[in-house]
């Protein structure tokens, strides 16, 4: 399986390099060498124990090595905005960024990684590959070997950005295709930003979507990052997200899977500075044969840090969910507080859930805990509602909405939160996720 990719690289090395962001080319050969040794991970690797995407790597995908721009009309791309959100919308098709027509707010840069290498070489140099190299595994090498471009978001020092930034990623292909992207987000000292990443798949293109994103949150900066997945059954999504948080920084990371095909998310957050705070959570609504795995790893490398983790899954029909969360408290850290919660609902006999919440503690000045439950809706609550005249189906709906409410409530962008509530309800009613007037998703 790995050989086909090694061959593609060997045969097209120059072509790939000619159409790539220069920073990616620097690490490419070393990554290819490393990948030759590791190959793809297997289910015997603890981090990939339940990983649902691995088997799909065997397909013979097309790669857009010449970086030809797919034809998608602007109208289609920008149709998907949330009413009232008033966000700055930037569109991408696969790993390529579209020209930005809007003026960006002061202190904010959004461009392709390739452009960033020219315009902001210093910032790119500072962030690029520092986290990925630290946490590199087989899939990181794979991405580094083939990635050609991605997005670059830079929020300058002291910028307080109220308006959310929204990156709409449209997956589009006419053949079975693999897209490989490497993205960078840098929120500089004392800056604040909200970033919304929406993934869509137009007309059910068959796509293997591989991304690697590095996020640097500088001292006393604050970042809210929402990853919203609303794709198609034909989408295979494999992503790695690496975050470092410096002293006094805050981050809210919310990973929402409304509809998808097969998803594996590998998220690593390093709390590298004292007094850093993290809320990491997510929600998965899966049915049919959808599969979603969230692997999360939070490394407490500094003192007085605090993290809360909350993941909720609702699995219907033949869906399969996996949650694998690690909280690691390093030696010598002080006054760590870390709590992890994973709650799951399996609605049918054929739905499956794998949960693996883990604590690894190498310090003693800690307050840590985790809880995980898998079960069904509370029968007494159901009965109580029925006794008040609410139909059973309606009562179930209300309870399921309540079940995921605490994840949705964490969204601070109000129009988005309302939209998510509505979409969740529609999703749970089996109506499919379609925003108003939307012909795309």
């Amino acid at each position, binding site marked *: 399986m790995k050989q086909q990719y090694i061959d593609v690289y060997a045969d097209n090395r120059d072509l790939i390099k000619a159409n790539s962001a220069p920073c990616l080319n620097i690490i490419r050969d070393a990554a290819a060498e490393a990948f030759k040794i590791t190959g793809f991970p297997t289910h015997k690797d603890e981090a990939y124990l339940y990983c649902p995407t691995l088997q799909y790597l065997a397909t013979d995908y097309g790669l857009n090595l010449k970086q030809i721009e797919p034809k998608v009309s602007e109208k289609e791309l920008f149709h998907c905005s949330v009413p009232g959100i008033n966000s700055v919308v930037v569109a991408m098709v696969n790993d390529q960024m579209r020209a930005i027509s809007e003026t960006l707010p002061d202190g904010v840069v959004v461009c392709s990684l390739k452009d960033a290498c020219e315009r902001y070489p210093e910032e790119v140099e500072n962030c690029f590959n520092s986290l990925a190299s630290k946490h590199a595994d087989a899939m990181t090498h794979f991405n580094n070997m083939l990635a050609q471009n991605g997005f670059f978001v830079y929020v300058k020092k002291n910028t307080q950005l109220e308006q959310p930034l929204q990156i709409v990623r449209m997956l589009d292909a006419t053949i079975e295709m693999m897209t490989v992207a490497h993205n960078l987000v840098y929120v500089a000292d004392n800056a604040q930003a909200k970033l919304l990443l929406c993934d869509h798949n137009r007309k059910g293109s068959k796509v293997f979507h591989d991304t690697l994103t590095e996020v640097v949150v500088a001292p006393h900066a604050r970042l809210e990052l929402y990853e919203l997945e609303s794709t198609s059954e034909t989408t295979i999504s494999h992503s790695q997200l690496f975050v470092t948080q410096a002293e006094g920084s805050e981050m809210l990371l919310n990973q929402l899977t409304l509809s998808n095909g097969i998803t594996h998310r590998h998220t690593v957050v390093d709390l590298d500075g004292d007094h850093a705070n993290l809320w990491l959570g997510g929600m998965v609504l899966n049915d049919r044969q959808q599969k979603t795995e969230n692997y999360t790893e939070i490394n407490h490398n500094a003192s007085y840090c605090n993290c809360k983790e909350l993941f909720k899954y609702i699995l219907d029909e033949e869906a399969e969910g996996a949650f694998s969360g690690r909280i690691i408290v390093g030696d010598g850290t002080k006054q760590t507080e870390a709590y992890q919660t994973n709650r799951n609902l399996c609605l*049918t006999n054929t739905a499956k859930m794998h949960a*693996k919440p883990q604590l*690894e503690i190498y310090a*003693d000045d800690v307050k840590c805990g985790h809880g995980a439950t*898998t079960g069904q809706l509370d029968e007494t609550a159901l009965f109580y509602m029925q006794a008040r005249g609410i139909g059973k189906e309606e009562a179930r709906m209300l309870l399921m909405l309540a079940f995921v409410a605490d994840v949705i409530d964490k969204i601070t962008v109000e129009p988005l939160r309302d939209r998510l509530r509505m979409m969740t309800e529609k999703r749970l009613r089996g109506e499919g996720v379609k925003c108003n007037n939307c012909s795309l998703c």
Partner: protein
Amino acid sequence: MAEDKINNTKSDDIIADVTSGDYKYGFTTDIETEVIPIGLNEEVVRLISAKKEEPEWLLEFRLKAFRHWQTLKMPKWAHLNIPEIDYQAISYYAAPRKNAPKSLDEVDPELLKTFDKLGIPLEEQKALSGMAVDAVMDSVSVKTTFRETLAEKGIIFCSISEAVKSYPDLVKQYLGSVVSYADNFFAALNCAVFSDGSFVYIPKGVRCPMELSTYFRINAGKTGQFERTLIVADDDSYVSYLEGCTAPQRDENQLHAAIVEIVVMNNAEVKYSTVQNWYPGDKEGKGGIYNFVTKRALCKGDNSKVSWTQVETGSAITWKYPSCVLKGDNSIGEFYSVAVTNNYQQADTGTKMIHIGKNTRSRIVSKGISAGKSENSYRGLVKVMPGAENARNFSQCDSLLLNDHCGAHTFPYMDIQNPTAVVEHEATTSKINEDQLFYCNQRGISTEDAVGLIVNGYAREVINKLPMEFAVEAQKLLSVSLEGSVG
């Protein structure tokens, strides 16, 4: 009488008795031992089988396991740092030279002294302690007490080699039926070279009137111990079984790879308690036992129940997951564990609860205590198969840290494939509460004793599940193994 004894023991102040932090079971006994040359190959497997005058089917069983073992690699997934083990540098059979004694008079007096030192009530006059004992020294079962009393009720309690001769059908039917020779690396090794252990059969409708107990002791140097226990509880029966382990202090590490299999039929119940106190190595982490054990119970019948209770304070490295396969409808599995690690000890221990039958229930209570530079991990799997309607599991895994150089880890795995299942897991990790320490100090209790008290309190839920005799020993062990760990 028995009641009085219990009350006295209960109010006994355990902590104050403990004055020495040394491993008190670390003596060797000067007994003539027969040890076969080191190394492992088919010839050795044949030799062990021949020495034990085994039937052909058992030799075949061993050889099949040995051939499979050769294809396997040592598992690496545990949170353990296991030095390379040279399996060719170990002797796979060591036995006290004397043949099995018929009565206590025939038992080597040195051996009796050994068991005296261990506090094992081997002598008949200790009948009041209400325990029948099978003592396994190195690889051979040396003495089983109360055989006759038990026989009256049809209970079989003897060494497994004797069972192979006297009850071949029973052994053949159940040996390897819960833990297959292909189960894992250490299980395969054990199947190939196991030397002795205990066999228990409780017939239909019989409640075993006394606790059955096996004491395992490794004595000879450079030997591995590979014992094997098989317990079969037939319909409507009950038995409580205790296992104790000690080993002498030696500089080199010694390997212990046992298998325990339990089969529980309709409405039957088995309680299996372990106080594991193998030599943990010295303060610098030198020596100690590698304890790689496979324990599994099959709740085969409806309404059957099995309960594992373990207090683990010994061994340099522990790799152990007593498990329950809940096959019968309404069957119940329980796992109560206290694992203490100090100095350079490493433990990766927990359980597996496999829910197959309807209305099956399981409960896991695990209390880890880490001190020194040790690493202590809970690893547990709760699996609910599609047919396990209304399965219920509750797990509570707490870790207590006594200083900042040790590690405490929790690795629960939950695989749920039935919508009617309810599986709950809770875990906490915290350091020992300083307010509690100060409160004890203010009442004149030294910090070291306060730690002993608090740790025993923390572990009480598990210790209470042990039979009284064991509970007292376990409490002492907890305090002793943590001495010098705070400050």
